[in-house]
């Protein structure tokens, strides 16, 4: 492949505040149209924006978590354009002096390696309203509930080299903003969306090619497909002797193509200037330090610690730190079993528990089996009270609300038979009942061992320890 793909992402994370960035209107999703739009959000003359303190705090949290410099002084600017869902005729954003800049985040690569992706900047801005084009007898309906909702726009360096890397980076940011509690990450509701800047160049070339911008990619699957298509389109275009035009394109998931969105003469000319309605935002070093002290252990650090403290493979540690809630759950369960069983807890969380959650459409916070309960079950596997197979039955009963592991094991009589005398008697019964197979076995048909073990398991309803049964049968037959 002689072409190199160059991708930079602009991710819009809606900050999880109660009120808007510049007004005291609510930000709750799904309200009746225009019931959460005040005079400030509607762009009435004579009103003034007042900045929400929580929005600044959240931006600083993100900045600190990604190694960014926190600007001691940042400035809001007006981005001017006309659209009916932007009542003021400008969006309040940040331009020359964003709140944080110059950080990075590490992503995992398919080959097992890691890569550092630069974060150019993250700036605060307000969202626009929503335009509804259908069903208003030829007119457009405007809902301004979303106008003024706080956004953190996270701009990456053009460090990404494939659609897969772009998705990996977007997932990392998604994980981080949820981990920090600054964004709910809900992509269906538009709380987390992304624009991609894409260009191609010949391998070895150091200058960037002309880029196109893909707008509003709001699922991990779409972003991967959309970028793949756009890259293919650019390569075909250039190889046929054409040139890439700088433009904004929209991905159409129905037809799986990208198409131009704005015509060239409307090319972005936003005439930014500092918003005279807002003073510079000053963030004191003491404030930054207080926020730093309040940060949780970050996903990457926690993942490393899971490997170190619980002896987990890096893969498991990665899965278990996908969200803070999942990591908390794992750690609560793993801490309640003997240390050698920590990996067994990981298997259960990633296996049966995740399957049950997915089956019932639940998230970890509303799991029907809580961490102490799961630890109780794993402890019984670990101390050989029950086999892994029986444990699945116990887990289903726990999931159905029948109580804790010990209670279910007791009530259903599932305790493993480890009493050698009792097992020997059952083995003797099985041997006496199948003289034909015994003769065959003694003639050298040793694969009949499985048959005898199966018979013993049947008579014990699976409660015998398989290793022990094996040894006993062998001793009896030979």
């Amino acid at each position, binding site marked *: 492949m002689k072409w190199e793909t160059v991708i930079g992402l602009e991710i819009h994370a809606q900050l999880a505040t*109660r*009120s808007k960035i510049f007004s005291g209107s609510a930000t709750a999703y799904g309200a009746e149209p225009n019931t959460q739009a005040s005079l400030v959000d509607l762009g009435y003359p004579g009103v003034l924006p007042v900045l929400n303190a929580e929005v600044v705090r959240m931006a600083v949290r993100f900045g600190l978590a990604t190694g960014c410099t926190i600007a001691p002084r940042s400035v809001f600017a007006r981005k001017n354009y006309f659209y009916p869902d932007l009542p003021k005729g400008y969006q309040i954003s940040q331009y020359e002096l964003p709140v944080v800049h110059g950080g990075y985040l590490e992503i995992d690569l398919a080959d097992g390696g890691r890569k550092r992706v630069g974060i150019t900047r993250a700036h605060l801005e307000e969202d626009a309203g929503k335009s509804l084009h259908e069903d208003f007898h030829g007119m457009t309906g405007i809902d301004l509930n979303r106008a003024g909702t706080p956004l953190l726009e996270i701009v990456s360096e053009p460090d990404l080299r494939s659609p897969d890397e772009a998705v990996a980076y977007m997932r990392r940011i998604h994980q981080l903003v949820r981990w920090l509690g600054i964004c709910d990450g809900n992509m269906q509701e538009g709380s987390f969306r992304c624009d991609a800047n894409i260009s191609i160049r010949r391998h070895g070339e150091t200058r960037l090619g002309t880029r196109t911008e893909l707008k509003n990619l709001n699922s991990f699957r779409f972003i991967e497909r959309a970028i793949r298509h756009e890259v293919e389109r650019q390569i075909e275009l250039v190889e046929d002797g054409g040139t890439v035009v700088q433009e904004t394109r929209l991905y159409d998931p129905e037809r799986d193509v990208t198409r131009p969105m704005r015509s060239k003469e409307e090319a972005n000319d936003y005439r930014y200037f500092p918003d005279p309605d807002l*003073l510079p935002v000053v963030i004191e070093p003491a404030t930054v330090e207080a926020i730093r002290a309040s940060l949780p252990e970050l996903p990457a650090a926690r993942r490393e610690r899971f490997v170190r403290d619980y002896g987990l493979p890096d893969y498991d540690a990665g899965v278990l730190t996908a969200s803070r809630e999942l990591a908390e759950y794992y750690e609560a369960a793993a801490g309640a079993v003997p240390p050698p069983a920590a990996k067994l807890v990981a298997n259960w969380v990633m296996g049966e528990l995740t399957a049950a959650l997915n089956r019932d459409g639940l998230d970890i916070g509303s799991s029907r089996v809580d961490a102490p309960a799961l630890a109780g079950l794993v402890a019984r596997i670990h101390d050989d009270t029950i086999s892994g197979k029986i444990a699945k039955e116990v887990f289903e009963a726990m999931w159905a609300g029948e109580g804790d592991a010990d209670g279910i094991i007791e009530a259903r009589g599932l305790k493993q038979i480890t009493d050698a005398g009792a097992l020997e008697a059952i083995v003797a019964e099985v041997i006496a009942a199948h003289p034909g197979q015994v003769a065959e076995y003694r003639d050298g048909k040793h694969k009949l061992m499985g048959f005898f073990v199966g018979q013993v398991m049947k008579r014990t309803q699976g409660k015998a320890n398989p290793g022990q049964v094996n040894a006993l049968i062998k001793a009896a037959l030979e």
Partner: protein
Amino acid sequence: MSLTNDQVRGIARLARLRLTDEEVSEVSGKLASILEMVDQLQATDTREVVPMAHPLDAAQRLRPDEVTEADQRDDYQRNAPQTERGLYLVPRVVE
């Protein structure tokens, strides 16, 4: 520095202003004199000067993250020429 008539028309379009040809040449002259003043400013050495974002030497006050606005949609929509099912209606815009 002066502006071509096309540049003036471009700026007018971004500002949603409709100018006649006479107005374009008139505005060109006025804008040119403003740009002359900007040229004078740019001749000044400002390497030691911190860019001013606001004439007041003060920092932005912050407000606590609290919902303080009640729903007054019905009142606000009395100012709108046309509404339907809670939405403001505007001439159709198609992307």
